[in-house]
């Protein structure tokens, strides 16, 4: 393919293509709407890329296979949508506990329960607070376009390896299903991503070295606490170094809209419309949901200006809590959200913003 050549892919396919381009050589998954194009792409393309594709008997099995693949020192991924990701939580905790790199893609649908297959952002808590047992975190990245789905998946593999941590791509049904042009080998393509180093901790047979054990079990009192402190140190380091967000028109803003993923695209349109009306609106789009981009909020919260934040989500207020924690009571933080398949519209966002500014 020519450099900078555009191709047309769905978000689901873009994530799959990116994974293969990133050197992912193991994928296991179980069908669930709305991420079926992803497993389909992997079924078609993994073998010809020299990797292994397995349609597993369940999501429990899929994530366990990813555990085994990662323990073998190979870049590995699984994908699913909300209910399937819930099933994987126990093993994601094992992956975190064994300090294995892995990429897990959640193309969110609406819940709770079987819910429906429309877009939603109501798995935020599960992704960023740790959905399984124990004190652990996953890196969580939220793309808002097909291009970014591609770019952030590459990034997720690099970060997962760098920190030996599970990394989640948190998209929604809209991102998964929509098709957009994409440049796969443009400026964000990092050859580094495929030349990852061999993992000396992997279970590959103990030829010429002492045996390796991949595990998350620390029976003796004190050992687990020591290990947990090591994890916490790692998380602190990630929080320092890996906060990512997009900020638009924030310097003179009196109202800053805060949204992530596809929701942020609607919020951006609303922000531009507000600007056209002469209202000083800005936008912050968190790209890393964990670590949450706290620094930018902290900086704005101590500035002298009058400022209000309006958090907009396809949920009933999950990221809202992280914004409030970062702002720490210093500025007003308000919320607009719909869930169950409903999406806050541009008009609703504008209306909310105007009424906030006049109140």
């Amino acid at each position, binding site marked *: 393919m020519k450099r900078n050549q555009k191709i047309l892919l769905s978000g689901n396919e873009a994530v799959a293509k990116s994974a293969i381009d990133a050197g992912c050589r193991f994928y296991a998954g179980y069908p669930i709407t709305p991420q079926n194009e992803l497993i389909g792409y992997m079924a078609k393309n993994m073998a010809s890329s020299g990797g292994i594709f397995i349609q597993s008997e*369940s999501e429990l099995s899929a994530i366990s296979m990813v*555990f085994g693949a990662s323990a073998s020192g190979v870049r590995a991924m699984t994908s699913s949508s909300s209910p399937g990701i819930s099933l994987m939580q126990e093993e994601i905790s094992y992956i975190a506990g064994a300090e294995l790199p892995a990429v897990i893609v959640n193309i969110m649908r609406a819940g709770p329960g079987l819910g429906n297959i429309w877009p939603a952002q109501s798995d935020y808590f599960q992704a960023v607070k740790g959905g399984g047992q124990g004190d652990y975190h996953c890196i969580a990245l939220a793309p808002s376009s097909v291009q970014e789905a591609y770019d952030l998946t590459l990034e997720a593999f690099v970060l997962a390896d760098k920190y030996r941590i599970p990394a989640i791509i948190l998209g929604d049904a809209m991102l998964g299903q929509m098709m957009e042009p994409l440049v796969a080998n443009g400026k964000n393509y990092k050859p580094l991503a495929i030349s990852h180093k061999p993992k000396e901790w992997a279970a*590959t047979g103990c030829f010429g070295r002492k045996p*390796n054990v991949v595990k998350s079990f620390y029976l003796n009192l004190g050992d687990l606490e020591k290990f947990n402190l090591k994890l916490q140190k790692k998380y602190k380091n990630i929080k320092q170094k890996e906060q990512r967000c997009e900020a638009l028109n924030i310097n003179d803003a009196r109202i800053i809209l805060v949204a992530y993923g596809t929701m942020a695209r609607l919020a951006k349109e609303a922000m531009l419309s507000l600007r056209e009306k002469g209202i000083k609106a800005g936008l912050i789009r968190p790209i890393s949901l964990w670590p949450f981009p706290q620094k930018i909020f902290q900086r704005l919260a101590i500035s002298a200006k009058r400022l209000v934040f309006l958090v907009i989500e396809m949920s009933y207020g999950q990221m809202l809590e992280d914004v409030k924690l970062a702002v720490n009571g210093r500025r007003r933080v308000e919320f607009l959200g719909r869930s169950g398949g409903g999406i806050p519209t541009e008009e609703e966002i504008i209306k909310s913003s105007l009424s906030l500014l006049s109140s």
Partner: protein
Amino acid sequence: MKKIFGRTRSLRGVDTHYCQGCGHGVVHRLIAEVIDELNIREITIGVTPVGCAVVAYDYWDFDCVESAHGRGLAVATAIKRLQPDKIVFTYQGDGDLAAIGTAETIHAANRGENLTVVFINNTVYGMTGGQMAPTTLIGQKTATSPLGRNEKTEGYPLRISELLAQLQGVYSVERSSTDSVQGILKTKNAIKAAFKNQMENKGFSLVEVLSACPTYWVLSPVESLDWIKNTMSKVFPPGRIK
């Protein structure tokens, strides 16, 4: 004088946490002996379970990977597919393989994964305090079947080996007993055959080992072996199943 029996290379010389007379110690040793006799220690990857044998990796001297409860064969599937030149086995108890992991077990078997499975059947959950297992015998008292297992409410002992033998993808299934010196030697041969099958790319091979849990059978170690021979073996007859 020559040493004709001693600890083999792949078994570490450490004390195990197992109870007096527990069958795990014997089977750990047999696996280590087989691995050394086949000279595959440096290419073997063991997948350890959740249950009493959770820290088997502390007793074996080769690479091991932990698995969540029941997920051993899913973990092993990925390892073997990615490293087909390595020898990969799972070590699983009856609760792990035949209750919580039934789906992973059946589907790995049905896919014909080229793996070796050592399945310890001792009819109880030992790690958690002797609760009823899928393999608990009718009438057997456990912490969660205090009046004895009743087939009307708890079902019959699950003969998962016979069930797995029905699957086209499965290459070999053998049940063996550690109730005697002869039984232990037969068990070793069965385990060795199951490893050799994998080395020859023949496919999914499972050895079910009838193993003693004196603590939760509330029997002495010697009585436990008699119980395997006279009672347990009637429900789980040793021999080649497939």
